């Protein structure tokens, strides 16, 4: 699940953010405890705790003392805004560069994009 090529706590934080952006984790929904998470993904509990701590300090999760950790109500919208900013740098620009290397005219790329049907799972159900 998590690989050894970057800090695992960052991978954990990213995975939970992905789940929130895709709507798998809803607002005010409780997330797994650190220990549940550690056992499920076979990782050190202190490492898992660090990932959760990062999400709490970013305001993505909040803590209810003695109960557990929950998804902040505005987390999804804020994460979506952050990722929209990164989208062109991280997704579109490399795609265009790749298309150029392969000699695919950008009109063909655009034409393809416009015929892809809207995927109901793609997270537009805000």
């Amino acid at each position, binding site marked *: 699940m*998590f*690989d*050894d*090529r*970057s*800090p*695992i*706590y960052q991978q954990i934080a990213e995975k939970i953010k992905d789940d929130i952006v895709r709507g798998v984790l809803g607002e005010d929904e409780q997330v797994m405890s650190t*220990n549940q998470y*550690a*056992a499920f*993904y*076979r*990782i*050190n*509990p*202190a*490492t898992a705790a*660090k990932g959760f701590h990062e999400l709490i300090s970013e305001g993505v999760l909040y803590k209810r003392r003695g109960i557990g950790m929950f998804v902040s109500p505005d987390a999804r919208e804020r994460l979506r805004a952050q990722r929209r900013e990164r989208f062109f740098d991280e997704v579109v620009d490399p795609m265009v560069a790749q298309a150029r290397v392969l000699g695919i005219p950008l009109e063909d790329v655009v034409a393809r994009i416009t015929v892809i049907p809207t995927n109901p799972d793609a997270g537009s159900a805000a």
Partner: protein
Amino acid sequence: MSPGIEVRDLRLRYGRTVALDGLTFRLDGGKVYGLLGRNGSGKTSLLSVLAAFRKASGGEVLVGGQNPFENAAVVRDICFIRDRVDVSDDERVSAALAYARDVRPNWDAAYADKLVNLFRLPLRKSVSALARGQRSALGITLGLATRAPLTIFDESYLGMDAPSRYAFYDELLNDYLANPRTIIVSTHLIEEVGSLFEEVVIIDEGRLVVHEQADGLRARGASVTGPAADVDRLVGELRTGRDLVVLGEQQLGGTKSTTVFGHLDESARARVRASGLELGPVALQDLFVHLTKKPENLENSR
């Protein structure tokens, strides 16, 4: 309950062979530690001194603030599982378990039964009749069910197939979650078990190479790949003013990949990206290989 460990300038000699050559590090205790090193690097020697199986030739080891050697009160709290099981060969498996039950204050008999079933250990067989992997599984059963405040597994998985090894990792983690204590695991199989470690100690030729949080180590390796001249120039630039060590270089035709070790700040990363070179991560296993390849290495405590 979870003893910390202090190792100061530890030396161990076997005749003229130097096994440990001035090791110094400190473990707070209560965590899962990975001890990594190549064959002959001194892992077993170090663990043997920690567990009071051997007397140090020089320097000092403290477990929970006390020297463990010939110290019954400390040794009672230590369980050292080597790659072979420390019971006499003609004993039955059931007798080995009964002995542990009698001498180990925290022995959990119900948990031992569960592990016996999990690893399908034949209770009535003598230890000498066990296959290699079964013998390892017996060691692991003894090591986990003893619940010693300091539990040490020294390559305890030899001969076990992958499903059994993963069963071991799962039990180790779950039992640690339920009963936190100081656990040291020495291993070569970093890819399999690395995610269980909170901290990693790497030794080579009896000396400390690195002691760091496992996640910190994962963040500190990077590879820069691209046209050889560009890579050389960029790595040279990155190293000015930064504590970066070149761990390895590989070249194929005109393409070169250089592995560096150290903290790459955001400005360094931006510089690599702007140069059009590829910045890749380095797996813990690869870092380990690089860090222990050369004898003259980074002396780097935390």
